[in-house]
């Protein structure tokens, strides 16, 4: 007896719930929700400000080179030991790296290297299209990292502000 009544209840319910469900899909179908699909190669994704792409060395527009002083803090910090830094010792007053390589194939995009960088010269850039055909191509040299890093943004002049106030 109890079972019979649930069947009748189910039938009655279906006359309400099915049109309700159809209405939901109809609203989606017609206008209400825009497509979430991105037409990727033509339509670029909007990356968030703190996006962690390839760690790269932006070029300082004043000097035309990276601000890296070759200290190797990033290489020591890297959990995967994928960064190789060698200091250029030709001119002791001008500290710059002779070799700066990142083997991106093992990078896990943690961003620790950029956090320890004393000159903030290593940043997580927004490059994410890193597909290539060989393992050798996944090792990025200083030139590659500077090319992919772009330029430093004009500096926010934070040091002068306290003097004015």
């Amino acid at each position, binding site marked *: 007896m109890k079972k019979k009544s649930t069947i009748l209840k189910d*039938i009655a319910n279906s006359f309400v719930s099915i049109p309700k469900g*159809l209405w939901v899909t109809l609203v989606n*179908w017609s206008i209400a929700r825009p497509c*979430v699909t991105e037409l990727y190669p033509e339509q670029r994704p909007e990356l968030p400000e703190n996006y962690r792409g390839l760690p790269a060395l932006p070029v300082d527009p004043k000097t035309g080179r990276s601000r890296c002083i070759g200290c190797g803090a990033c290489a020591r910090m890297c959990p995967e030991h994928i960064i190789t830094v060698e200091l250029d010792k030709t001119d002791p007053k001008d500290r710059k790296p002779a070799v700066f390589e990142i083997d991106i194939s093992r990078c896990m995009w943690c961003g620790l290297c950029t956090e320890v960088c004393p000159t903030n010269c290593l940043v997580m850039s927004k490059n994410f299209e890193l597909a290539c055909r060989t393992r050798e191509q996944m090792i990025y040299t200083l030139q590659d990292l500077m090319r992919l890093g772009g330029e430093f943004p004009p500096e926010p002049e934070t040091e002068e502000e306290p003097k004015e106030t």
Partner: protein
Amino acid sequence: MDLQSLMQLGLEIGKIVLIAAVVLVFMLVAVLYMVLKLRWVIARIQSRLGPNRTGPWGVLQTVADALKLFQKEDVIPCGADRWLFTLAPALVFIPAYMVYVVVPFGHGLTARSLSVGVMYISAISSIGVIGIVVAGWASNNKWSLLGAFRGASQLIAYEVPIILALVVPVLVSQSMDLNAIVSGQVGNFWNWNLFHVTGWPMLPVAFLMLLVAGFAEINVVPFDIMEAESELVAGFNTEYSGMKFALFFLAEFAASFTLSAIIVTLFLGGYQPPLHILGGQLTGLALSAVSLCWFMAKCWLLVVFIMWVRSTLPRVRVDQLMNLAWKVLIPVGLGNLLLTGAYVTFWMPK
């Protein structure tokens, strides 16, 4: 046999072949477009874009898919029964194709107007079950076999409510000839079987039953337990690839058009325009053309409705499906039939 009668025979055979070819081409084109439309509709409902790369707006997507299927290797699993495995797609496809023989596409546009059209449709479309069982059995695969068993129980269970629903408009129209049923609904849309005042409430109930049972019969999503991707890989056609799979696919989509065509013919005035002034007063070839357009428009609306339901409802369980057929649809159908019989015998205006 003299020359003249031979020529007549040849002419007749040529006519039959021509009609068969026209229907086949129509079916192929319709299915190609229906698959595309289904993907667009489901994509849109799920806030996606759907196919849009192959050709302008992606219209060539299904053509490309079909070409891909043509090229595929025809794999027959080594444990399979070769003959039955090859025969099964044909057993499913041919009935789906043969149903088109009696469908009145427009005024005077029926391949063969049979006086037992409704019975022919229900008889022919139930042959497809055999193909599905054969496919599942011959594949020698547990998923296929489970799918086939489910398909057999589902399709045989739902044959009954479908026939109980088909009988109602037949009783009211006093004819099994689909053309006669359509001509019985001539005039404006309130003369259609679904909306006809005198047929209330038996005809709307039969319409609803045919719609629900039809969903099970054509094996689309709320009732697709014999394919049930998440449970049975792909059900009875798990082992099929290439052209054989294409035949199953074709039959499935052709069946959903057939269901729409049957519902339109029996309940929604067939090829009649919704208002008499929208083409009912024409004669000859113009009438045929206009009525064909109306028929296609109605069928298309129903096909899109099927897609809409398909992208809305989740799949039912096997036991729920069986309960629906045996505990709800069949008792309701029998009661409805009794009521219709009483109505036709005692109260129907002659």
